[in-house]
């Protein structure tokens, strides 16, 4: 009776665990639900471990039991140290190596399995045998080594100090997934094979996405390979589309709009005002930062925004706007360049040095809508575009703003948000 109960419980628990992982990764892709997604991943591991427990692992000897506890104890302590210690941002340090641990573990198990008889450590109906088993174990070792290498690169290599680091971490996770999947297949653990396969391709997909935002290929990001030409002055510039901007704006509580000459050229003031109204309806505080020399003539922005019927109370002089930016979730720079150039404050050799600055970089996330990386009227490079929190959205201001607006409507229908 007990045996049949366990035989029934294991596949059920495995399926539940796999669903937790799938849902967890899905939820982690949205700002609103990312924290819940992480909890689901934890639950997925927990349920899989319960499944393992009811399957009645044979702790053959006292030695085996002790080994398990030593390993778990050491791992948990190490995990707590890395998890709670050092800096918050993924940043340089050992943090990124955590993405490799799954693969390293799988490779170690695979090597141990080579040294033992077939069907070690436990017989499973799904376990591979003979040639396929050897091939799977071999691939697991290779993938585990790749995970270790990629994780090390993410920690100390070229990506460690740039926007490309998530790509390196995602590739390490992907390699770990391959290793786990191969060991899962060889040993006949359906849940490890399934989640390993899921992780292998999900990590790759994310790495491609991060690299694409940088205008590069995944492996070039990791190994510091050549970047695509055209953008000579800039490195580490991330680009994204209106959808991603809408996903961030959707949860923003305070948004500062920073219009510039580009808005005037594109006649985007109405589109900007419409977007601001939508955000306000979703509970966000929206203000406009007006730089005295934005546009062609002093007061150019005020005239245009007044034409778009923006309440005068939302327009702020640059000094007051900088106070707002300090705790803003999003700074949306619309066709401005020199007025948001940090060189006005910190580079005495720059042509724009000494000009007032709307300090967009103070905001948690910065989106810059611009046609290209071409310099503004002063003809100088803008370091704001290279900040880790900055994302470029290339295109015509009006069209981009309208696209963000329609994405917002799709993502959070009014009925859900208001």
């Amino acid at each position, binding site marked *: 009776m007990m045996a049949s109960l366990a035989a029934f419980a294991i596949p059920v628990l495995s399926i539940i665990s796999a669903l937790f992982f799938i849902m967890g990764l899905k939820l982690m892709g949205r700002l609103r639900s990312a924290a819940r997604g992480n909890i689901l*991943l934890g639950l997925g591991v927990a349920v899989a471990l319960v499944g393992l427990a009811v399957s009645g692992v044979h702790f053959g000897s006292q030695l085996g039991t002790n080994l398990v506890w030593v390993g778990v104890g050491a791992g948990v302590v190490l995990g707590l140290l890395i998890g709670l210690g050092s800096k918050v941002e993924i940043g340089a340090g050992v943090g990124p190596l*955590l993405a490799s641990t799954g693969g*390293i573990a799988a490779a*170690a198990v695979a090597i141990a399995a080579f040294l033992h008889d077939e069907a070690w450590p436990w017989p499973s109906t799904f376990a591979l045998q003979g040639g396929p088993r050897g091939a799977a174990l071999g691939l697991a070792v290779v993938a585990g080594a790749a995970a270790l290498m990629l994780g090390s690169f993410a920690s100390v290599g070229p990506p460690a100090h740039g926007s490309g680091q998530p790509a390196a971490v995602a590739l390490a996770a992907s390699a770990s997934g391959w290793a786990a999947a191969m060991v899962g297949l060889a040993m006949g653990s359906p849940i490890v094979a399934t989640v390993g396969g899921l992780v292998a391709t*999900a990590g790759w997909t994310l790495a491609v996405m991060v690299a694409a935002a940088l205008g590069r290929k995944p492996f070039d990001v990791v190994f510091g390979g050549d970047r695509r030409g055209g953008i000579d002055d800039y490195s580490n510039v991330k680009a994204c589309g209106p959808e991603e901007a809408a996903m961030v704006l959707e949860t923003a509580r305070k948004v500062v709009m920073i219009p510039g000459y580009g808005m005037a050229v594109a006649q985007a003031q109405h589109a900007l005002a419409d977007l601001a109204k939508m955000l306000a309806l979703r509970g966000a505080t929206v203000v406009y930062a007006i730089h005295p020399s934005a546009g062609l003539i002093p007061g150019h922005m005020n005239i245009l925004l007044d034409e778009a019927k923006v309440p005068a109370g939302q327009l702020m002089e640059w000094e007051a706007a900088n106070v707002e930016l300090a705790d803003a979730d999003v700074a949306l720079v619309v066709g401005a360049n020199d007025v948001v150039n940090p060189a006005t404050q910190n580079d005495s050799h720059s042509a724009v040095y000494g000009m007032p600055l709307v300090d967009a970089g103070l905001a948690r996330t910065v989106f810059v809508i611009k046609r290209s990386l071409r310099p503004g009227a002063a003809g100088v490079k803008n370091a704001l575009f290279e900040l880790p929190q900055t994302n470029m959205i290339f295109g015509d201001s009006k069209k981009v703003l309208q696209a963000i607006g329609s994405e917002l409507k799709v993502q959070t229908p009014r009925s859900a948000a208001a």
Partner: protein
Amino acid sequence: MTQGLLIALYLFTLAGFLGLDVIRKVPPTLYGALAMGIGTAAALSIVVALPAAAASSSDVSAILTVAAVAFASAGVVGGLLRTKRALRGREGNPREGNPRKSKREGNS
């Protein structure tokens, strides 16, 4: 034997294609946290590492499998904590709350 191989390939193929699709549009602010989260999921290899350690009978395999258990459990615990902190660092204010409630706060 062939049955095991077929089921394995079947599972792996389906899961692999699901992985391509489960990550779609992701806001750039979440790239780092999501990469860590995917890494945490890979540490599920602890499920094969635990019984392997329990069954190990020689010195070499004992060392290998204990290291495997330690790495994988560090990956689970550390990965979950790091991801949580990366999310909090990015968000800074409560995003989980009811949008309706946050709207009322915003207007008051």
